[in-house]
């Protein structure tokens, strides 16, 4: 093999790895704050990607309607929980965020879809739609279960994944879609060709990693999220609204997922069920990173991407086997290195 192929594979691997890194970050974030292992992360990716592609192709995406439906559900949950003490302020606020907002977005989606909007508007709309879905999902599916065990949350997460995947098929059909490139410029350096798309991927990944780092290190909300992650009860006693932390985590995760989807859909064809596998590779990175460390997760994601690129070249049949089996030695090392002093979890 020559250096050109090697460099090419490397570039391909890094691009994919950057996406996995973003997803891994989101998984770590959600897990740390809410203890939910976010299997539907993959659906956020496909929803983002396919909403973007549909809008760009001048079709009205079903996800906008889903957002409104979920919003109505979230509003109902809010009213039901607060039924003993209904304040006008609470009702109005819940009504605005859960019903008025998705209704406006739906109207915008209908309006723009009819006239093939520019890329920027497609991106913005897709992000907002998926972000709302993430937010309302937390309210409906996970917030009522916040006190239960990791296992129950995990199973609920599977349920949400199944429902979203089924809805995905309903909205986008069984055929794969591609979207227009975010940036269509390209330049060559030596024998390598860099597309604007791949540069965007790198830039956004780096921006998110730095952004999250700043958010958690410097802002009060970020610190509140970290406090919730360490000790839920303690955080509540200190006046942090843990439900708000959960909402922020889900909001960030769905935005990150949708953004990853929008960035890869111009490069690869995505199907309604492609997200699961992409999300899982983010998982692999997150596990290697130990579900706690952001920089380690990012590095691990790059490794996963590169291993995937090389194994798809050398042993394409065994690509997935190799990627998932990558974990075994890592887990082995981890279990040898730290004989875990876990205690009294429940």
């Amino acid at each position: 093999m020559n250096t050109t192929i090697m460099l090419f594979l490397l570039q391909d691997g890094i691009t994919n790895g950057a996406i996995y890194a973003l997803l891994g970050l989101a998984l770590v974030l959600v897990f740390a704050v809410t203890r939910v292992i976010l299997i539907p992360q993959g659906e956020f990716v496909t929803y983002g990607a396919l909403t973007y592609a549909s809008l760009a192709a001048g079709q009205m995406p079903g996800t906008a309607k889903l957002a409104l439906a979920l919003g109505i559900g979230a509003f109902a949950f809010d009213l039901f929980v607060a039924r003993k003490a209904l304040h006008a302020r609470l009702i109005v606020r819940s009504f605005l965020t859960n019903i008025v907002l998705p209704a406006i977005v739906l109207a915008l989606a209908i309006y723009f879809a009819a006239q093939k909007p520019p890329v920027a508007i497609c991106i913005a709309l897709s992000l907002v739609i998926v972000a709302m879905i993430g937010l309302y999902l937390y309210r409906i599916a996970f917030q009522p279960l916040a006190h239960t065990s990791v296992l129950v949350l995990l199973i609920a997460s599977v349920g949400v994944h199944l429902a979203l995947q089924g809805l995905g098929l309903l909205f986008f059909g069984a055929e794969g879609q591609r979207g227009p490139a975010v940036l269509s410029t390209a330049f060559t350096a030596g024998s390598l060709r860099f597309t604007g798309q791949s540069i965007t991927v790198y830039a956004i990944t780096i921006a998110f990693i730095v952004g999250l780092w700043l958010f958690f290190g410097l802002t009060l909300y970020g610190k509140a999220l970290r406090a919730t992650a360490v000790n839920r009860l303690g955080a509540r006693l200190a006046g942090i609204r843990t439900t708000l932390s959960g909402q922020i985590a889900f909001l960030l995760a769905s935005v990150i997922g949708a953004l990853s989807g929008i960035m890869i859909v111009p490069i690869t064809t995505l199907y309604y069920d492609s997200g699961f596998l992409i999300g899982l590779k983010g998982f692999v990175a997150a596990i290697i990173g130990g579900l706690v460390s952001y920089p380690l997760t990012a590095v691990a994601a790059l490794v996963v991407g590169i291993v995937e690129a090389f194994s798809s070249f050398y042993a394409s049949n065994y690509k997935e086997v190799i990627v998932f089996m990558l974990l075994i030695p890592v887990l082995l090392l981890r279990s040898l290195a730290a004989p875990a002093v876990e205690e009294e979890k429940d």
Partner: protein
Amino acid sequence: MQSRLPILVFAAFMAAIPFVPGVPPFWIVLLDNIGLAALVAMGLVLLTGVGGLTSFGQAAFVGFGAYTTAVLSTAYGLSPWLTLPLSLVVSGLFAVLLGLITVRLSGHYLPLGTLAWGLGLFYLFSKLEFLGRNDGISAIPPLSIGAFKMLSPGSIYYAIWIAVIVSALLTMNLLDSRTGRAIRALRRGHVAAEAFGVHTPRAKLLVFIHAAVLAGLSGWLYAHLQRAVTPTPFGAHAGIEYLFIAVVGGAGYVWGGVLGAAIVVILKEVLQSYLPLILPGSGQVETIVFGIMLVALLQLAPGGVWPWLMSFLPERTSGRKPDTSLKLESRGHSAGQSGVLLQVEKARKQFGGVVAVNNVSFDVRAREIVALIGPNGAGKSTTFNLITGVLSATSGSISVLGKKVDKAPPQEIVKLGISRTFQHVKLVPDMTVLENVAIGAHLRGHSGPLSSMLRLDRADEAKLLAEAARQIERVGLADQMHQLAGSLSLGQQRIVEIARALCVDPMLLLLDEPAAGLRHMEKQRLATLLRELRDGGMSVLLVEHDMGFVMNLADRIVVLDFGTKIAEGTPATIKTNPEVIKAYLGVAA
């Protein structure tokens, strides 16, 4: 312990179903599928619900079972009955391999780790040439007895349900035994179990193998039911589905697995056949509704359906009192010892820059009660953890009967006859007092998992329970013997811990704040008990904050402050020691 009658009724009921006139053949197919899923879910109940180890990878073990028999019975023409043990062995061997890697992982790595290798194995199944790649293997011979071939779903029905009921019985037998108690203690963390000699990684591996073998059995049956295997039913989705079968049914209950399988299989079937009538249209409407119902079910009954149903039955707090005339042989060392039992020499423990225990030396001799006192944060509990092997000392040495035990793990320390209680009670709340206390006698029993499953352990088991009952009576909790440990008051739970520690038949008892949370009368009774134990030849080392209790009871007192020993002597000298007064009250202004 449980009555066998409901199981017999259930078995008779299941046996009768195919003979009921008018039962559609399709129901039998459904029941076959329920049975297959129930086998896997039962393993998960033990693994996840009881042992606290979440696995997404069970579908892969079903795959090992199915592919083993598929390859051997088609390519090599082996009889399916011959491949049955081989299927189970292959699943079991892979469980050992994967288990050795995964079960040591703590908390959240474990489920994700199993998800990852589950996926990896699925892709392996679908890519390997000799497993037929994505097309799988077809034309697998049916099960047969003599000339009778089990070709129809109705004929293999009995094979499946006999497997389910026998597996359920074996699993329940296992849980209700010495090994079972060790498994049930796993979920509450490993420190308490290890303090009584349970080898926790081994216990975890054991449940892992048990679950894998059940999955392998299901796979073997599946291959001969379908008479063809493809990789799809062994993928990540199937692994996830088995897990939620267990959770929906009630992850801590063997029959919850069966019930969960029935709920999920029937629900899916109903959705698939009726939903298109209500909501015509393309797509996977049933997947959507299924996912939503799953979340709704969890929100309504987060503990699963089985315990929810059971809560409607009248509560049975039966449980026979064990025959206390049965004697467990003494461990040989106790009483009769003389001289120094425990020698702590310049023990030091640092956590980073914090010196929790600073070169502390003291000893405990035969037949004496020594109290370790000091203000909060003085290093008392850390000293206990050093002695019992939970922590290892940074420097210095600890010897028992003149033998150094610095690096020994807790399981070895308890073998030397040192048992302990914990400052923060570590009982298994959903086990009865009797079962909790019997964990203390773990090392004095010998039955392994296989003999427990087959009920060959009853003689051994009766002796263990008799010993536990004796110690419970000794500490005065005979009336609470069959209550759940979690339902007792905190003070009583501390006493249960003492009974558990006594079950070790120790020569030295370490008690960490035994009187905390006790009422005045209870404290007096505890003091009387401890004096009796001492007079019977046992030594006691206790940490306690109640000065009245300590001063009246202890023969000798060691005072720690900020990790350093500041005084040692009889209660009378300690009371007047200026250093001690300073540590407790500060310097007079």
